[in-house]
């Protein structure tokens, strides 16, 4: 199957920012995880997922996001979310993601230390 999710990433200060575009399913989740782990292995401990262009997430995608959260938690890192669609935010809430990850207004909030 052709990949449906595309992403771009950049490191700003000590924060990895991943912007996604598309459906976060098994394949999309794996893509995000691969990108995150690549940088985590290089020492990154803070990851921000910008989901402005990803309005749909399935439970497989969520389970992969949970694994990213756990991996970051193991190294005293953290996963952040921004630009969440209200339905996605509600889903994350129910699935318990916000027990260990945070939602923020922007990357600046994290870089400036307010989150």
């Amino acid at each position, binding site marked *: *199957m*052709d990949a*449906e999710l595309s992403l771009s990433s950049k490191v700003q200060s000590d924060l990895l920012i991943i912007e996604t575009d*598309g*459906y976060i*399913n*098994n394949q999309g989740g794996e893509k995000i995880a691969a990108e995150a782990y690549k940088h985590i292995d290089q020492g990154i401990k803070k990851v921000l997922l910008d989901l402005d262009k990803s*309005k*749909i*997430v*399935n*439970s*497989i995608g969520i*389970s992969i996001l*949970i*694994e990213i959260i*756990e*991996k970051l938690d*193991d190294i005293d890192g953290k996963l952040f979310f921004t630009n969440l669609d209200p*339905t996605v935010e*509600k*889903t994350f809430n*129910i*699935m*318990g993601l916000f027990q260990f990850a945070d939602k923020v207004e922007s990357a600046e909030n994290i870089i400036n230390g307010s989150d």
Partner: protein
Amino acid sequence: MFSNYNIDKLDFHFNTFQEGLNVLLSSKNKKDFEEKFVQFLKDHLDEIQLKLYYSTDKLIWNQVSPSDNNNSVKFPLSDSIQIIENIPFQKCLSAVIPFDQNENYAIVLFDKQKLTKFDDVDKLNLKLFAQLLYNGYITFQKIKNEKELIFSLNNRIMQMNTLIDTGIELARLDNVSKLISLSLERAVSLTNSSKGVVIISRNDVYQESAYFPIQFEFVRENYSSKNMIHSEINHQDIKIEYFLIEKESRNGIINFDETDYLLANAITRQVAAALQNDYLVHQLIDKQKIEKELELAAEIQRIIIPETVPEIEGYKVAGINIPSKEVGGDYYDVIKLKDGRYAFVVADVTGKGVPAALLVSTLNAALTAYIDQAIPLSDLGAKLNSIIYKASTRDKFITFFIAILTPENGNLEILNAGHNPSMLLNSKGELKFIEAGGLALGMFDMGIPFSSQSLTLKKGDRLLLFSDGIPEAMDENDEEFSDERFEKLFTDYTPEDPGKFIDKLLKQVKSHAGSAPQSDDITALYLYKP
């Protein structure tokens, strides 16, 4: 007395065990668990090689660390942790750790360099690590199962919540494309489908499709009920089919289960309900539009149709018009002309509602414009015909009857354009039907001439102009009032008071109709020369 050395040793073993447990419980999965265990052992056992084996049946043991699928060995059957020497090969020390029938581990230590033989301390240490593996794995599995259970429960809550929210969102949408798009996205994500397509057809003819997440080539025959969910909605003459393809899992494509079918069908039912609601709302809006149109048409009619008829010296006149619905197609009037004559008019437009009312309005305007020009009635008929023909659609025309009375001498000029014949009853009780001649107004515009006729009303003569809604009034059994009954009523009625006759006529028609709704407009104009 227990020596400090022994206490220190016990303390060391306890701490090692606890440390090992912490390491093992941080494992992400089974492979990670095995790798962490092997590394922990290597960190605590100097100069010893080790291998870890795994068996699902206690018969065939595969080497999992270091991983080697080609190296399988055998161990003796055991129901508890067992320390054995020289199995599976010489100069090794092994621990067999059974969990249940389907899960068993074995640790093999070998190549001990300092000593040629494993001693009791080695055996004790191995037993400790075997116990560590046993306890660690049991706890790891319990935590894993607990996490999976929590995830599963949360997922169910999330599915139910999403279903509810989707229903609410769908009900708010008034755009069918958005409705289809949203429902497809939700159906795909809720069932963990890889992709989905909606195919819309009208009267079994393909119209359009929608895809999520991207367009793909869909060949229905390539899928079975295990890897495709099909759910269908039928609304009016439209069929909307949802196809959800290939359920995802972390381990690849799996079969859809019963819950997936329930979720998919729940979403399509929500779509069906939203479409039905939308349809009903549009119906209501259309109904309100129609009611407004009818109000407008009724207003037009009220302006055109007179509430009273003029008094004509030497004559008695009465009229009635009762539309069958809010707006009727009948028209009548008594127009006083400038030259002192009076025009009695009855007309019947095909159809009802605003179009009929507008056509009647056109007739009224044209009649008013030409009636005082003192042109022959046949020419008036031709002019009206041309105007109505141009103003109406192909299916619309007007039957028209006009009688122009010269009060001084009782002369009547009559033109009947396709209308039912009027009745003339003389003082001797002789009934005559006035046909006159001509097609209904607006049927053709080919210059077909209209012909009029003249007669004179004498003392005691009664003229009744009417629409076919009176003789054709239906009762509950679809039986008409009938021409005969109408004629008898007209001929039998004395004294000759037009107003009272109209009242009696109306009562009889209503009595005949009973509870049946009024089937057509009721119009009558009665002229009596006492």
